[in-house]
């Protein structure tokens, strides 16, 4: 009888974890506690079919402070539907005077389809403070599920010389950052460092800011997939990019520079030495193309408050204009139009939702290796940021 009561209590405890509660555990006991959790879950058929644990990758997240950790937790919860993983969140407080490390486990479960089984993935949260922050990799590494790719999501400006960053980097396949979070004056230096790190190792680099451009890139590529647009691709001579901006706040040009860097790298446009004086608020410069030169303008648009790219127009010498612009009255949609000198052209409305961070991360978790297009783009964008040096 007593045994049955004990078992019920254990089951209740694990059901609470699967319902979203967090359970504090001893650091050395993390793995065994997770084993117990899934064993109990597999035997628990109270709600119909037992839940199943799924894991297709390791996702290590780094956050400074509880607010960021909470945000990371929410994003991972959304991502886990598409990428069930073992996620390990490091919540660091390096400025704390005393060193400490504590662990907790939790689970992200999806609502099952009718008749289907509930699928859950696991999360380990490690709170490290003081000197323990520098050593937390020693706890993380044995917790990685073997044989599965490791993604390190550094939710902050990555410090290339930081010990923990270096140690974690050594064990990961993929580093995920978001250059939109970088201070504009440090972006070029940070991206240069990251570029060097990935060039010197097998680690693939993902920038969520690049992922934000995927839909834009797709729409731009469509202009030139077939005739009649295809013939103008080699004759482009002007690029105008407008960034949505908030009055009084310095606009972030990085996303726009990545877009221009992408065009330049794919179309063989090169920056001439001394042709560009980098600025943080707006930029205008010329690139050399096979057919002549391309005038580039990157400007904030105070009429469209918000974030991210607002519009892009590409002009060819013959007068052809290809444009993409977010709709002013419905920011979930954009207008894509082409005006061609032969009189034909079109305009259409497409969905252009601003992707959530979870969507962006999810897209990056889909990648299996180096993204050559991004690496070449980054090389160009960094050149624009530091004036072609």
């Amino acid at each position, binding site marked *: 009888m007593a045994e049955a009561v004990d078992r019920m209590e254990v089951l209740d405890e694990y059901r609470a974890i699967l319902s979203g509660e967090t359970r504090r555990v001893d650091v050395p006991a993390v793995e065994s506690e997770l084993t117990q959790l899934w064993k109990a879950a597999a035997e628990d058929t109270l709600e119909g079919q037992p839940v*199943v644990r*799924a894991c*297709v990758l390791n996702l290590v997240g780094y956050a400074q402070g509880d607010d960021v950790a909470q945000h990371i937790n929410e994003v991972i919860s959304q991502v886990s*539907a*598409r*990428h*069930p993983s073992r996620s390990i969140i490091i919540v660091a407080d390096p400025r704390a005077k005393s060193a400490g490390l504590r662990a907790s486990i939790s689970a992200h479960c*999806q609502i099952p*389809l009718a*008749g*289907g089984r509930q*699928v859950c993935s696991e999360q380990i949260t490690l709170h490290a403070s003081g000197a323990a922050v520098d050593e937390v990799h020693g706890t993380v590494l044995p917790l990685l599920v073997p044989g599965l790719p490791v993604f390190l999501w550094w939710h902050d400006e990555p410090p290339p010389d930081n010990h923990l960053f270096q140690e974690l980097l050594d064990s990961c396949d993929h580093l995920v950052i978001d250059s939109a979070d970088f201070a504009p004056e440090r972006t070029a230096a940070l991206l240069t460092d990251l570029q060097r790190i990935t060039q010197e190792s097998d680690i693939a680099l993902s920038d969520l800011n690049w992922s934000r451009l*995927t*839909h834009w*890139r*797709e*729409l*731009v*590529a*469509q202009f*030139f*997939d*077939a*005739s*009649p647009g*295809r013939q103008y*691709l080699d004759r482009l001579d002007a690029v105008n990019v407008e960034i949505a901006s908030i009055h009084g706040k310095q606009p972030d040009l990085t996303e726009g520079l990545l877009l221009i860097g992408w*065009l330049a790298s*794919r*179309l063989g446009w090169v920056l001439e030495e001394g042709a560009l004086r980098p600025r943080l608020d707006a930029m205008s410069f010329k690139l050399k193309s096979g057919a002549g030169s391309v005038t580039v303008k990157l400007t904030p648009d105070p009429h469209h408050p918000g974030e991210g790219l607002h519009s892009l127009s590409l002009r060819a010498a013959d007068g052809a204009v290809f444009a993409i612009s977010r*709709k002013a*009255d*419905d920011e*979930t*949609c954009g207008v*894509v*139009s*082409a005006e*061609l000198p*032969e*009189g*034909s*052209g*079109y*305009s*259409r*409305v*497409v*969905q252009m939702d601003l992707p959530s961070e979870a969507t962006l991360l999810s897209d990056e978790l889909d990648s299996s290796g180096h*993204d*050559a*297009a*991004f690496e070449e783009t980054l090389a160009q964008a960094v050149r624009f940021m530091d004036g072609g040096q």
Partner: protein
Amino acid sequence: MTIEETVENPLRVGLRSQRTPEPNTLIIFGASGDLTQRKLVPALYDLSLEGLLPGGFSVVGMARRPKTHSEFRSEMKGAVAQHSRTKSLQPSAWDAFAANIYYCQAEFNDPGGYIQLASMLQKIESETGCHNRLYYLATPPRYYSEIAKRLGEAGLTASDDGWTRIIVEKPFGRDLASAAELNRTLLSVFSEDQVYRIDHYLGKDTVQNILVFRFANGIFEPIWDRRYIDHVQITMAESIGIEGRGGYYERAGVIRDIIQNHALQLLSLAAMEPPATFEPDAVRDEKVKVLRAVRPIPPEDAQESTVRGQYGPGVISGQRVAGYREEDRVEADSATETYLALRLFIDNWRWAGVPFYIRSGKRLPKRVTEIAIIFRQPPLALFPTTDGSRIEPNVLSITIQPDEGISLNFGSKVPGPGAALRIRPVEMDFRYGTSFGVAAPDAYERLLLDSMLGDATLFTRRDEVEAAWAFVNPITDGWTNPEPPSFPNYEAGTWGPDEADEFIQRDGRKWRRL
């Protein structure tokens, strides 16, 4: 333009989709029909919303009922609001999409209608500057030949400065002779590379994944043959009845509705040799080779090699349902089969002697489509079981719907001491819904886009469709004499007639419990 002729776009490097179609006009014959409203226009709207359709894309709906452009757009708006995958209609996106939808009222056999269509297309194309046309035959099959001929007479089957293609819905013929006749008619006005015979099953991600599973993984192909495989079971079970399609189903039966197309497509994907490339004809060549290697079931063996069934009243999910003969537009003494089990052999090096069992039926206990590969037993029974039975064979099952996934059953020791090892089958399970938590695009979206891109990989070629009919025809011929079985012979909500169980048990095997 074929895939090989595609001009490379440097901006496509690193992007998932390799290109968008050229601007074109889709002309839907049968625009007032169910398929147009439930599937085609919602799929086009969803593609448009995702930015996957080209600028300069237009739709012309052609049907017999008089209607204005505006009335047709309004009808389609309702259809999209109800059936679009993206659910809530976005007003500005709809307005932009609808602005390029037109309606052409005409009888399908009226040459004047085609002149009117030509003039409408000319007007649209003068604005877009593109002359690419895609016809979609979404009418009842009896109009297919008529429409093709009229398009030919009106000079609408080719243009000098663009491509012209035609999509033909299933059923493609009702026997080998009618399919061959339809092919002849189509190919008298179109060339084979213009004809896209659609089988929406092939547009499903999980069906395409059969090829990925087999040919992108090194561990399965070496054991994918007669040396390791005992037999294969293909199940296509539906819990629904005929859904008001009594008129059609009475003429078709499950053999024409499912076996001739969907089931034989699954068979060919599961049994084909690796293609040299993933080009349309390379893949289809291998599929056709499988169909040609299927040992014919001559009419005199049709009774013995198949089991037919027809459902009577019964209970499914707690609901009483009527028997087939009580359905609308079904004869009270109908001899149409709603269930079929058959066994076939593929006479080639890989599959010699391996039986393939196929079963499909309406009003079975659940909806499930599955290919199960049942492996041979180990050569030596090393571990005696307590009751003397053999250990269960390994089974690799590929579930196409509804819970798409792949699972592998194998024997494992039951924990505990004892001299005799206890071995129990356990399942290693992979579910798509678990690993890829995104909704797969509708099969029609994929197939419409492929046809605009000129990619015929997932469409059935002439020789393929005729090879499938060549297998099915002798079976249906053999059923005409003697008398059909005594119908109904299975209760709705059960796994088919008892004879189907006895049929497979005669070979010392059993149907998988699903």
